[in-house]
């Protein structure tokens, strides 16, 4: 399939201008009741006491203030989805969540159907009532952090809930939001996991009939307590070979249950509407605005021709101080080159089954098509021949089912080809 770049180029500027008017929004609630041993996100332990109400109020005010400021920097007119993550956002007062949603709705257009998700932890909800409240003020999707169905494992990981708490929460969420609007987060390669125990765990989850499951491999990150425990040998993880078996077993089992893998870690029931449109936006190059401590953004400032990558101040205290002083707390702001933007697009979208779509590619590179860059490159020919990469009917460059399992080996090749293409054609990066 060869798509002429000439055909697209006349309207590509319009498409880019259009892209600049749309975005998704992410809000970060940095507090947790308890810190999980494996977590490397930006999170802080918060003790519930008489001051916590004041902290929450200040947090809310700052989140709203930063939203106003940052959106003001952009030409964004429409927000396609909103996501509350953390930390533990379900610990935030429901009124805070509601006010933030209203704020976004006042500043931009938010469709009736726009996906609004909140991460819920079994520990933080008492339960059904909160979920119902969420539902009432417009949240339409929840992601339940089950992680494990084994109480022993939950304890080792520092989770502050039981397997039963998770199941209760999952059931209520399914009741309140419906199967298509609930996602389950599960970890594999946990301490003590065997292939059989993992299979049982997955089977049990499937018996509750959610339509969306996210599978994450427990990845020890430097600086986490888990990392230190592994180094000292007090905790042991299943070996790499078993980890591969667990992932492949999950692929087979989920397929059997009618799930489709639409990204490395994300599975949705075929024929359902359970895919997360918020996440898909990250992976196809849509602008995103991150509000809150440590949140990341990618957007075009008003009138600018290059995209910015932004990171907000990490620590909640300094973030708040900065927001109160400057209206926002951007700590790091970098202009991205064309090749930076394309590299991110490639690295994220090749992890999805759809792959790199030509219409998304051309928004950022109207001169040369995907085919121009990748079809002839000798170093990736073998990836096609060995059935790891393919061109789809609509001209997308995709990793095959097999290729997705080894996409970390593929990506460096693809990025090298991209860089070499820019070098040989002396393109301005």
């Amino acid at each position, binding site marked *: 399939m060869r798509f002429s770049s000439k055909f697209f180029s006349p309207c590509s500027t319009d498409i880019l201008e259009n892209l600049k008017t749309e975005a998704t929004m992410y809000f970060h609630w940095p507090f947790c009741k308890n810190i999980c041993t494996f977590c490397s996100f930006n999170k802080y332990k918060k003790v519930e006491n008489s001051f916590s109400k004041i902290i929450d109020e200040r947090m809310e005010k700052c989140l709203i203030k930063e939203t106003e400021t940052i959106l003001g920097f952009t030409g964004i007119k429409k927000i396609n989805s909103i996501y509350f993550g953390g930390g533990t956002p379900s610990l935030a007062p429901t009124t805070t969540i509601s006010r933030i949603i209203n704020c976004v709705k006042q500043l931009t257009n938010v469709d009736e159907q726009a996906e609004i998700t909140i991460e819920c932890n079994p520990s933080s909800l008492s339960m059904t009532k909160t979920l119902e409240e969420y539902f009432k003020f417009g949240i339409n999707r929840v992601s339940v952090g089950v992680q494990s169905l084994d109480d022993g494992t939950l304890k080792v990981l520092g989770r502050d809930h039981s397997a039963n708490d998770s199941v209760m929460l999952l059931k209520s969420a399914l009741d309140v939001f419906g199967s298509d609007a609930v996602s389950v987060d599960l970890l594999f390669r946990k301490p003590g996991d065997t292939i059989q125990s993992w299979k049982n765990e997955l089977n049990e989850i499937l018996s509750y009939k959610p339509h969306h499951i996210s599978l994450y491999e427990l990845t020890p990150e430097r600086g986490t307590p888990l990392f230190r425990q592994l180094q000292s040998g007090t905790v042991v993880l299943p070996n790499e070979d078993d980890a591969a078996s667990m992932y492949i077993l999950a692929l087979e089992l989920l397929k059997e249950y009618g799930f489709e893998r639409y990204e490395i870690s994300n599975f949705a029931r075929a024929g359902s509407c359970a895919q997360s449109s918020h996440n898909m936006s990250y992976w196809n190059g849509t602008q995103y605005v991150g509000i809150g401590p440590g949140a990341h953004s990618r957007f075009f400032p008003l009138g600018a021709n290059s995209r910015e990558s932004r990171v907000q101040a990490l620590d909640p205290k300094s973030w708040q101080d900065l927001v109160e002083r400057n209206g926002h707390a951007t700590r790091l702001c970098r202009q991205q080159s064309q090749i930076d933007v394309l590299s991110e697009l490639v690295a994220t979208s090749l992890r999805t089954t759809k792959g790199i779509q030509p219409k998304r590619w051309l928004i950022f590179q109207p001169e040369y098509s995907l085919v121009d860059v990748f079809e002839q490159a000798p170093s990736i020919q073998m990836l096609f021949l060995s059935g790891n990469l393919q061109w789809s009917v609509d001209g997308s460059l995709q990793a095959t089912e097999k290729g997705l399992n080894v996409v970390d080996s593929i990506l*460096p090749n693809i990025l090298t080809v991209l860089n070499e293409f820019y070098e040989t054609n002396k393109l301005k990066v």
Partner: protein
Amino acid sequence: MSFQQNFRHYSSKSKSEIDLTLFPVERIRNFSIIAHIDHGKSTLADRLLELTGTISKGGHEAQMLDRLQVERERGITVKAQTATLVYNYQGNDYLLNLIDTPGHVDFSFEVSRSLAACQGVILLVDANQGVQAQTVANFFLAFSQNLAIVPVMNKIDLKNADPESVAIQMKNVFEFEPKNILRISAKTGLNVDAVLQSIVERIPPPKHCNINKPFRALLFDSWYDRYRGVIAVIAVIDGIIRNGDAISAKHTGKSYEIKDLGILQPNEVSLSCLQAGQVGYVVCNMRSSNEAKVGDTLFKKGLTNVEEVASFRQSKPMVFAGVYPMDQSETAALRSALDKLTLNDSSVTVAKESSAALGQGWRLGFLGLLHMEVFNQRLEQEYGAEVIVTVPSVPYKSELLGEKNIKLYGARDIIVNNPAQFPDISIIEQFFEPMVLGTIITPDVYFGPIMSLALDRRGVQIDSKNIDNSRIMMQFRFPLNEIAVDFYDALKSLSSGYASFDYEEDGFQESDIVKLNLMLNGEIVEELCTVVHVSKARKYGKEICLRLAETIPRQMFQVAIQAVIGGKVVARENVAALRKDVTAKCYGGDISRKMKLLKRQAEGKKRMKSIANIEIPRETFIKVLKR
């Protein structure tokens, strides 16, 4: 040689009290000490220097004659060093020139060139360890040159010394009468004076010397001094040589003017002249040790039809190995380290070699295995350069088939030093491989295991005899290739360290050798190809396939590793395809870290060699190729 050592030599140069003209040829003795490693050669040399007042007692570093760091550490001498001693015998002063020889397997070439300047040797044997393989090799070298041999038994002060049975060994192997063997302790000085007396009594003065003829001398050693250039060590045969004289070298045809000359004690001592029969150094603006051809004849400039003192023979490397920097950015540093070292050791041949897997490197030729090891150690220790040394190979001779090919190569026989340059089998009439005559001396309890080791290495037994009640001497003819890798280690380990081994070159022999190609998914990998005897091909093929299978990282597809001879697969291993290589993590908005990692990986891939689309890290090649 390091800066400090050079400096020491330079600064210690002084005018000597010795007047060499007082020594006629009859009162000169040129001799070497030959011994197996650790039999006390350097200690004896030190003691001789002390007794004659050449150096002061105890006021010097241990074992004066071992100049190189690696020599001191390993107790072996690599470069021959020379010292002139004055000894008073029965009222007359004698000039004794101690010509030090390298003390280990494999420097037989260096030994023989040192011996060319001598009329006699001291054969030193440890009274505890007895006759060792190297003693035998060195004895025959001296014997074949018709040198007078003074047998000396050392370390008789040791508690477990067994002089009686060592004397029997020396009788059985060398036919020395026990009454003629000196029994000494170089460490305590016991009887060392008798050694000096025997040198005068039993070793003849230099022969065929004539002080009235024009100057003529044998160049038998040299080293490089960064301030003064080459310092050549010579034995004067005829005439007299003085500062400012013009001389020529027979083999190179070049002429020089003498800038400085003198004797070695063992540091340079400047004198005004050297005359027939004497041994000393000359400095004459030779730029590199390549000009100072060991074995060359120096003579008064302008003479014609000069007779060569010794037949000149270019040293011939017998073991080759590739040398590469650990990191390609160190190429320049390694080059300069090699340049410096080869200035001092012209017996190492250097050829540029480039490997797609290991990058730019050099193929070095060494006289033997220890020579290679010592050179590499010097490279690492004295220059701090970390190097990859590939598995050593030996030169093969091939006889070409057909006049056309002979014309093309310019000779019927061609020598191939590198398996990668192995000619196509279809144009070869016959292959020849280099052979050695190996001598093993061992306690007889290890006879069985050593026999099977030797047979496994394609050894053919030539001789075997008891040298005393419990020790046995065995001689085998081995292909050099078979002893080139880990033979010495295997021998030591199966005899608990008691067996000793030495070898001498023994020509080429017709052989059934084959080129073993290594293929990855059907594509030949040049740098992994090797030349082996047909009987070893399968075993070696299997070994290297296994090693590769363990070190090649899993790819996105199965990798077939095959060892192939001609069209026939003799060994095969598979590397299964990767099942999973993906981080199942949550990548939402924060992908900066992932991008950084990918960038690093992409850069890493650039450094990998891709063969048949298989990405092979440099480390894999290093693991497989490194010895």
